[in-house]
Structures are given as structure tokens and as C-alpha cells.
């Protein structure tokens, strides 16, 4: 089995905290973008040797920046090039300002099974601080509009924004009937306006936010299945779970990364070079086991330890109360999740 990630680099405005590969909306470039994407899907088809595609993720950027006709063409191209399984999970990332009831129905009709809305917060004040181009009302309405359809509904929330009441934000999105919630602590990425302005996030605030998210969402019937991801039973994101489980995926679009069968990694160049036919060179992942452990530990249910490796390290981390071990399965404890990067670094 394999997965497909499609990077759509267009956004309505560029948020000052974001480090994804994005462009301002350029209607004139969309045609060329879709043409090139079609070509790249053809290349992938040659490499994938007919492997069934179990999940498709349209991310970005903001895929909802494309018109529904453009989205339809994109999905057609995907299906024409690759054998997408009939029960595939197909996720669309959307900006709240792009959502209305009729578009939501169209998305469902196009075969989208999961919509992820970039709510970020339900407080206008926090949204302003984040430099977002939508307000709380728009975000909540967007959730309402998608909920009416049959797709799985996710809300992205950013925590640790000054003045934000995280519990209230989470209660508000839960009340709109979401099935899934990703709660990310605000990360100051290098070379962003936030980094240049010297915005800082206090570690203790982050710690409390992580605990609050698990608590509030847990009480509302959500299961935490990854550091930042919570789902109602049966609604986990299969695509992201695949990343953390070490599955293979193909990546198309500018800056997209793929981790193809045989542990071949490719990372595409940025928009201009990609549009000129530039593609990432294949490199073989040196020690895939390390990577599998590194990402697998993010899953709350844990990961299988390969035979004969890292037993001493694991024993030490267990003694420190950072890992739990049952047979060959290891998982981070509540304390371990909070310092997971340094735990994972032990295996590098």
C-alpha cells in the first residue's frame, strides 16, 4: 500500500508564523501548476508500479484556494494516474474563509472524505495576534457548514497564543460537532516574521497547553493518538498515522517530500524550479529503523522495538519514567511525551 501527498502552495494571505512553502494567490499560475502536477503524477505512476493508493492528502498551503473546478481536475488527474482505492481517505485542508455549505457538498461529491479546517482559535483577539485573515464567527460557521455533509471534520487549533483561553477554544470547536482535533503549540519557525519580531513562547505555558488539550478533549470523548492529535473513535487520520508508522508515500507538487518504497526519499525544489520540471533527487534513508522509532514514538500506542537494538537505552528511559515497555512495544509515558524530542534523540 502507499499514500499520496499533494502540495498546493497557494494561500489567501501569508500568515506571519508559517514556514510552509506558500505563494500569495496567483490565479495566473494555477493553470501552469495543474499542468505540471499532471506531468509529475505521470512520473509517479511509472515509479509506483501499480501500488494501490490508500490515502490522498491535499495540503499546503491552502488547497481550498483552488476553485472547485480546479480541485475536480486535480483529483481527476490523480485518479487517472494512480489506482486510488475505492475506500481511500481523501483529505482536503481548507481555510475557514473559503468554506460555505455548497462548496462543502461539492467537496463531498468530488470524493473528499475528510476536511481539515484551519480554525486556529475561536477568539478574535488571538486570531488577530496570529495575523489570520478570518474571524471567529467565520471559523465556527465553516465547521457548521462542513458538518452537514458526511465527511470527517477536523479543526486545527494553535495553542499558546497570548491572551488565548485554550479550554474555551476547544470547547467551542467540540460544540460544533468535530470528529478530530489537531492542537499545535505555537512554534516559532526560523526566518518567519514571528521569529524576526522575537515572539517567544514560554515552556511552562506550552506544557500546560499540551496537558489542557488532552484533558479537555479527553473529557469530550476524544482519544489522543499522537502528541498533538485527538480523534473520536474511528476517526483517526489514516494518512498522518501512516507517516508516524513509517509507511511509504509519494509526494507531488513544489517542496513536497516523498518516502517511497525501498526507503527512497525525494524532496522537490520550490515552486519556480519545480514548474520548470525540477524534481528532488532520490536518496536512500540510511537507517530506516531509526526513523521509524523516531516518528513511531509520537504515537500514543507506541512502536515496536526492533530485535537486539537499543535495549540498554530503553531500560534507562524506562527507569527514568519516560518510557513504558510491554514485550517489544515501547511507548512514551505522560512525562515522556512532554520531552519526546530528547527521548527520541537517544535513538539517533
Amino acid at each position, binding site marked *: 500500500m502507499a499514500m499520496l501527498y499533494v502540495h498546493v502552495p497557494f494561500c489567501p494571505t501569508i500568515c506571519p508564523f508559517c514556514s510552509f512553502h506558500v505563494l500569495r494567490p496567483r490565479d495566473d499560475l494555477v493553470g501552469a501548476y495543474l499542468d505540471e502536477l499532471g506531468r509529475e503524477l505521470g512520473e509517479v505512476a511509472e515509479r509506483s508500479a501499480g501500488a494501490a493508493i490508500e490515502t490522498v492528502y491535499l495540503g499546503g498551503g491552502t488547497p481550498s484556494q483552488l476553485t472547485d473546478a480546479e480541485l475536480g481536475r486535480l483529483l481527476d488527474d490523480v485518479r487517472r494516474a494512480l489506482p486510488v482505492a475505492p475506500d481511500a481517505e481523501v483529505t482536503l485542508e481548507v481555510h475557514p474563509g473559503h468554506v460555505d455549505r455548497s462548496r462543502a457538498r461539492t467537496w463531498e461529491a468530488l470524493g473528499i472524505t475528510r476536511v481539515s479546517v484551519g480554525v486556529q482559535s475561536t477568539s478574535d483577539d488571538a486570531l488577530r495576534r496570529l495575523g489570520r485573515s478570518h474571524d471567529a464567527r467565520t471559523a465556527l460557521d465553516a465547521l457548521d457548514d462542513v458538518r452537514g455533509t458526511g465527511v470527517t471534520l477536523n479543526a486545527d487549533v494553535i495553542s499558546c497564543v497570548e491572551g488565548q483561553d485554550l479550554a474555551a477554544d476547544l470547547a467551542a470547536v467540540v460544540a460544533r460537532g468535530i470528529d478530530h482535533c489537531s492542537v499545535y503549540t505555537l*512554534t516559532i519557525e526560523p526566518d518567519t516574521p514571528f521569529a524576526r519580531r522575537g515572539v517567544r513562547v514560554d515552556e511552562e505555558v506550552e506544557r500546560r497547553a499540551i496537558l489542557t488539550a488532552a484533558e479537555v478533549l479527553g473529557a469530550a470523548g476524544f482519544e489522543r493518538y499522537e502528541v498533538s492529535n485527538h480523534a473520536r473513535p474511528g476517526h483517526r487520520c489514516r494518512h498522518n498515522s501512516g507517516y508516524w508508522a513509517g509507511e511509504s508515500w509519494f509526494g507531488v507538487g513544489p517542496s513536497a517530500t516523498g518516502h517511497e518504497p525501498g526507503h527512497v526519499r525525494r524532496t522537490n525544489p520550490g515552486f519556480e524550479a519545480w514548474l520548470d520540471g525540477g524534481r528532488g533527487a532520490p536518496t536512500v534513508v540510511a537507517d530506516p529503523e531509526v526513523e521509524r522509532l523516531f516518528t513511531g514514538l509520537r504515537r500514543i500506542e507506541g512502536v515496536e522495538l526492533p530485535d537486539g537494538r537499543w535495549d540498554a537505552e530503553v531500560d534507562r528511559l524506562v527507569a*527514568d519514567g519516560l518510557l513504558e515497555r510491554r514485550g517489544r512495544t515501547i511507548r512514551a509515558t505522560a512525562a515522556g511525551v512532554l520531552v519526546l524530542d530528547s527521548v527520541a534523540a537517544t535513538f539517533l
Partner: protein
Amino acid sequence: MDLSRIRNIAIIAHIDHGKSTLADRMLELCGAVDPRDMRAQYLDSMDLERERGITIKLQSVRLDYRDHVVNLIDTPGHVDFGYEVSRSLAATEGVILLVDAAQGIQAQTLANCYLAIENDLEIVAALNKIDLPAADPERCCEEIERILGIPADQVLRISAKTGEGVPELLDAVIERIPAPKGDPDAPLQALIFDSHYDQFRGVVSSLRVMNGTLRTDAKLRFMQAAAVHPAEEVGCRLPTPTPFRSLGPGEVGYLIAGIKDVGEARSGETVTEASNPATEPLQGYQEPKPMVFCGLYPIDGDEYPRLRESLDKLRLNDSSFTFAPETSGALGFGFRCGFLGLLHMEIVRERLEREFDLSIIATAPSVAYRVTVRGGREVTVDNPSELPPMGEIEQIAEPYLQTTILAPSDYTGAILDLCQSKRGEMIKLEYLSPERIELGYKLPLAEVVIDFFDQLKSRTQGYASLDYEPAGYQPGNLVKVDILLAGDPVDAFSSVVHRDRSEEYGRAMTEKLRELIPRQQFDVPIQAALGGRVIARSTVKAYRKDVTAKLYGGDISRKKKLLEKQKQGKKRMKAIGRVEVPQEAFISALRLD
């Protein structure tokens, strides 16, 4: 070669008075270096010397000047490298004593001048830096006459920067410094005054022929080492090493004899000819006694054998440090090393890292204590962690220094205050002139080791200079302070301090370590304890949160690399029990502000 046409000299002075710069002008004047290759302080050839702008090793060079051969040795001025000066002087008949015309006589001017007098050497005194606006040649000449007894009218005035007066100085060298004596037909006696290990050629020695003739291909006997080797190459540094067929009495040059065993051609060795040996070796050198000690440990325990080998090779080039194996509970196998001072310690550590590609940890410097235990037995302890339990100790005596401080008289009060606070005892206070004083103080070596010199400099705006020599032992009210990391005592951090200062020391130490030890996955309590009693504590708080919020597919390899890089940084750390401690933590231990 005609002995009357040879002059052997060393340039001696206080640090930074311009010895190496003067050597530059002499190299130029004698056409020894291609102008295209010339650079400032040409003879300071080690990277460390160039980076720090000081001379660490003596350097000899053979110059041709006015039908004469001048063998010149440039020496270091820093007090920690005094052994380089004394070895140089045994190869010469005279010295140029250089005095900075803006600074006047400084502590090592005196010390080095006395050394030359003890060696019966002819002294040519010169005032340097007369180009400086702040130069005061009149006052300096007066000082030299009054303090050193050298008549003012014999003191030359030069600028090593502009070259002014340098030809006259060389003329004076030829006129005033006696030619060497020696019998070319007597059995060979040559004194090795410096050696280093060359990875391709083995031991390369600098030597001075006293009697007889040193010939290429001769079978040589190294008298102290009782070893015989053929003279593979004999030559002179011009300054480029250049082979010569032979060197006669009075000449200075180098010798390569294919020696791989670094024990065999040490400084102070006498070389003679195996077929016609001298009956007596020359008088060798008295190796100086180390004053400060520290443990050197490889960060990677597997490097221990290589550290030993490197210490052996380095000691050939610098026999003023000592080493002996020791083990530490915290650091494993290493060596207890003795040095002439803190700068010396730093230089040796850096040379080991650079020249031998080692990563090492140096523990806090200590002095050697004389401990009387119950029953009257006395033991010497140069590693605080080896101090017997306090209950068994009757008395601890610590080494003292007789220090000489020269400074402008305006700073007298500030210096007295400082010496008092360092438990000093005044021996002498003398006005050298209305503006300058000489102070004699007896001070505990341990106090001087810590930061005395830095403080002396800062309290006198850099105008005071310091020289010292060992002055025996005195009992003191000393105690051992242990440092515990996460509950376990770390022997490498133990220290001996004066009881009155122990709490202050404990607080400063625990605070300093709190800053130096990076956060870990768990809280790390740091305690200072005297006997069993905790006298200070601090805690390195664990990470509150250290986890990437969003890890999507495209981010995995970037994030992994980032963590790998952080982990690489940890390679410079030593795991003590469960705690990662960076290299600096060990050496900073005694450097408390």
C-alpha cells in the same frame, strides 16, 4: 669556523616588550627571510602563538651579520614559560635585555635579568618602542641604572617596529658580547637545549656544540640516555632548516638522529661521539617543579593510550610539565599533570587537542598540599579528591609564593587591599622611584592560581606586573568541599579551600554549575558539602517541554537532522552517572568571579 666570529645571544624581556618583533628586524637586516614570506613575529610559528600573540617556545636562528655568525634565540616573556628562558641561556654568552620604553622595568625584566647575571652572561640593555608617544627613555634609563646597575649611557634606544637603532644594537652585540670558547679537537660535547617530535623524522633536537665537532654520519652517544644513534642530519635554522656537514665549538644548530623513542634526546642531554667520547657530560638542566596540578582525561575513554603517547611526545618539547596516571570515579582513566601556571596548563591542553587531535577534559586546577594525618605521618596531595577523611587529618599545609609586584605608586592602596584579601603577608615595600614601588608579598599559591593576576591587572589598569617563586609551606585552616551531582559526589569537582571561604565557595560553585550544566530530562540537584554537611545547593531544572508540535511527512528528515546536530554537541560532554556535563564545567570550577 673561527670562534672569534661567532656570537651566541638570547633576547630576554618582560612579556610583550617586543622580543619577537626585534627578531623580525634582525632577520630582515641579515636578509634571512625572503621579503615575500615575511610576517610579523616570524619566529612565533605555532598557531597558538600567533592566535594569542605571545611566544610560548624558544626559537633559535642563525644569522650572518658583518662577517660574523650570530646565533639568536628568541625567548618567551610570560612567567609560566621561564624554563624556556633558562634553557636558552645555557647556550649563549650574552643577552639582549629589552625594556619597553613606555612601561619601564617590569617584574619579569628583573627576574630574567637576574637569571642572566646568575649565568654570568654579558648583558646588552636596550630600550624598545621609542617610537611610542608615551615612551619615556630618560626615566627608563635612570631606572635601569638605579635598579639593574647598568650605566644609562650604555643603554641603546631602538624601535623594533620601525627598525630604528637595530643595526647599532647588532653592532653592540658583536662588540660587547664575548665570542664562545671551545676546543675543536677535544672529544665532542654538545648540549641539547630543546627537542620536538616530528612524525616523519623522529626526534629533532636543538643543540649547542661546546667542544669538539659534530659531523653528519658520525656515530653519536647520548650520554644520559646511554643510547647510540647515527647523526642522520646536522644543520642550522637560517631560519629554514638547512643541512650542514659539521658544526664546530660555539655553533648552534639542530640534529636529527632517527630517534623514535622520545625518552632519548631530552633537553639537558649531552651528545658525544661514540668512537671518541667525552669523559664527562655537560651540566644538564634542573627541571622546574610544577606548581599547579589538574587531571587530564580523554572524553572518549578509548583514547587513553593515545593520550599517554601524546603526553610523552609533548613532554619532549616541553619538559616543564609532569604527568602520572590517575583514575577518577567520574572520569575514568587519565593523568594527573603538573604545570608551572594556569596559562601553561591551558597551552598544554590546547596543544594536546590540536597537535594530537584529542578531546580532553581538564579538571579544576589544584596545588599540592602537605597533609599531616593522625600519628604524624605526612603525605603530599595534589588532587583534592585524594585528601584523607577530614577526621583523620591533623593539619593541612599549603604552598606559598614569594611574589614581587612592580607598579606605579598610585596603586599601592589597591594592591595592598588585594593582597590582604588573599591572605598575603607583606615582606617588602620599596620605592624604586617617587612614581614606582616594588612590593614583596608572601601569598598562598592557591590564591594566586585562582584569579590573583587578573584582579591585580584590573585594579591597576594593567600597570602592575608580577613575578614569583616558591616559598615553602605554611599550615592553614583548610577544608575539602565536595560537590554532589544528583546526590553522588563527583571527585573531579572536589576542592580544598580556606574554611572562612568555604560557604561562599560552595554557593558560587553550585551556582556556576547550574549555569553550565544543560537541562536534562530530570531535575539535577547540585550540592556543595563540607564533611557530610550540605553548605550550598542549586538545581538544574528538567525540561518543562521538549517536543515538536507538528511533525508531518516532509518535516521528518529536517527535524531528525536538527536533533542529530544537538546530539553531536553533546559529544563534548562527559556523562557523569546520568548527568551530561560539558567540558567547560570542569575547568571553570576554580575560576569563580
